[in-house]
């Protein structure tokens, strides 16, 4: 029993890592007041980009960097539509997801069934990794897992302890006030959405070059949507994003671990989605929503002449 728990916990962290990248990005974008439902699309494009680049250059890291760039570029499409053209953010994000799914399928058709040879070497700290229990639980993952963990306090610090963070949050809370204070609302929102796209791209890259590692059409399988829910679950806070992402990683892992016990895989596949609805229910109660810190100007396009 103890072994089961330990190995499930150990597996939950890599399984939650793509979700963590995506959620950190979406938290940032939404803090600036822009909801981007295109995460699923940006993730899958990130996945295929990373796989393609890693496949042809032999470098995982180049693949990850390219995925970040592609994810960010795709996010700029949403930024242009929702910030500059001020169109409906829900529909624009949905369009971005469709675009990403289609593009990845078209680009990825040549990679189906091809392996990549390089692997990320797990980052192990001699001494620490051999500790009982703790060693295998905390000190034997690949570098991208640790990068995500490091990003959490960094992002938290930037968000709550620096001028950049105040700027970002004020744009999401009250763009008109921020504008009056001399902040370039449009620029801040563009940057936040771009960063969100980069993170989603890296999350997708993790799936295709580290976690799987393979290119499978539609391999994100709804992870991008779970990211959107996690953002609310995390109450737009990077630290809670970490907890939420690993929790959901755990749910994903349980799906596979419970299957041998004779539970239908299809019913288990429903788990993360049912769980997401539950999370939404818990975390977005009307009065609570205000208190938990939803950016006040979320989904509201900003325009100077209609103040």
């Amino acid at each position, binding site marked *: 029993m103890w072994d089961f728990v330990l190995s499930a916990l150990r597996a939950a962290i890599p399984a939650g890592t793509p979700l963590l990248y995506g959620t950190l990005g979406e938290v940032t974008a939404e803090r600036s007041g822009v909801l981007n439902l295109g995460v699923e699309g940006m993730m899958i494009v990130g996945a295929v980009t990373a796989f393609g680049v890693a496949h042809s250059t032999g470098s995982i890291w180049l693949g990850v960097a390219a995925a970040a760039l592609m994810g960010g570029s795709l996010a700029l499409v949403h930024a242009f539509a929702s910030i500059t053209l001020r169109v409906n953010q829900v529909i624009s994000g949905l369009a971005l997801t469709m675009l990403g799914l289609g593009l990845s399928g*078209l680009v990825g058709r040549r990679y189906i069934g091809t392996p990549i040879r390089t692997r990320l070497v797990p980052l192990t700290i001699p001494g620490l990794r051999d500790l009982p229990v703790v060693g295998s639980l905390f000190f034997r993952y690949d570098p991208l897992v640790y990068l995500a963990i490091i990003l959490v306090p960094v992002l938290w610090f930037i968000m709550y302890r620096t001028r950049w963070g105040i700027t970002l949050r004020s744009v999401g809370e009250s763009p008109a006030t921020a504008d009056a204070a001399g902040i370039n609302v449009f620029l801040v929102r563009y940057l936040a959405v771009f960063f969100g796209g980069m993170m989603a791209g890296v999350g997708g890259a993790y799936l295709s070059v580290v976690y799987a590692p393979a290119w499978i059409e539609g391999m994100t399988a709804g992870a991008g949507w779970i990211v959107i829910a996690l953002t609310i679950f995390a109450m737009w806070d990077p630290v809670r994003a970490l907890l939420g992402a690993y929790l959901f990683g755990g749910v994903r892992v349980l799906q596979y671990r419970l299957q041998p016990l004779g539970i239908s895989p299809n019913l288990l596949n429903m788990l993360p989605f049912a769980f997401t609805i539950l999370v939404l229910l818990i975390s977005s109660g009307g009065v609570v929503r205000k208190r938990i810190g939803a950016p006040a100007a979320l989904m509201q396009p900003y325009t100077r002449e209609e103040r």
Partner: protein
Amino acid sequence: MNVPLHVRIQKRLAVPRWIELSTAIFSLLLALAVIAVLFRALGVNPIVAYRKIFRGAFGSLYGLSETTVKAIPLILAGAGLCVAFQARVYNIGAEGQLLIGAICATGLALAFPDLPAWLLLPGMFFVGFVGGALWASVPALLKARFHVDEVLSSLMMVYIASELVNYLVYGPWKGLSEMGFPYTDKFSPSAQLPRLFRTRIHYPTLILGLVLAALAYVLIHRTKWGFEIRVTGENPEAARYAGMNYLKTVLLVMLLSGGLAGLAGVGEVAGIHYRLRYPQGVSPGYGFTAVIVAWLAHLNPLAVIVTALLIGGLLVGGDAIQVALGLPVATIHLFNGVILLFVLGGELFTRYRIRLEWRRE
């Protein structure tokens, strides 16, 4: 730095019909041009691809009939989404509601194979509508009672519905005569919708779709409910002050859009497949495509009939290039996404007047 050329953006007070129409067409053409560039970049000859798409969809009687076949679920689901979106209730889960409609109809067809067709088929449409509406009632209640964002909850319900279909066709409902395929047994003849001549057009569903699209138009523009729906969409605060019941409106539009999507699912199993199959086999994403259909129609259920035929043609053409050029199924999403983006962008030109003016120094 003084730029003499100056862009002025003014809000339009009224939107002329011709501007709406020409923007829609122009957006569509621009989207197709961009997709052509993407195709080119990915090593697919766009001229060949587009010719295949057009010929496949509209170039023959068979193509036209298949286009109509694909338009049927899009009309039903799209008309329902128009009603919901008018109230700014973003039901993104039509795909799930469609699948539940298909499940309910299948359940009835498998349970009572010996009922006469005049009783069984209307019964299947009835349970399909109820099933889709109930599935949509979950996000509706969550939104109206607990302020849960309906976009996410309705979407999560899609994945759950899809796994439910999988569970049924791989598990308890797996057909004995289907040689291991994830299908249910074939429906009895009395559970099969009649088709037009030798085509696959199951005309009862088509007629139902056309009638319901017209009714949806009447509902939105000619009734008190429709007025409440539109006011709730334009300004929920004003609706509340005027004493309109928000909960009722949200529930109404969700149930309607869910029910119509459910009917679309019934049409697919009773008119096309005569059995329940794995989710992608029942619907290649009609519920999501219906969002584009509705948006392209500017949320006008009557215009949905036209846009559904257009997008239906694109789906048929998509199948054609899939076979002929060996492109993946997901290619069609590329069309969906790019078209939707350009239609959205085009709205700027309908909502605002954009003028280039030379400034005199």
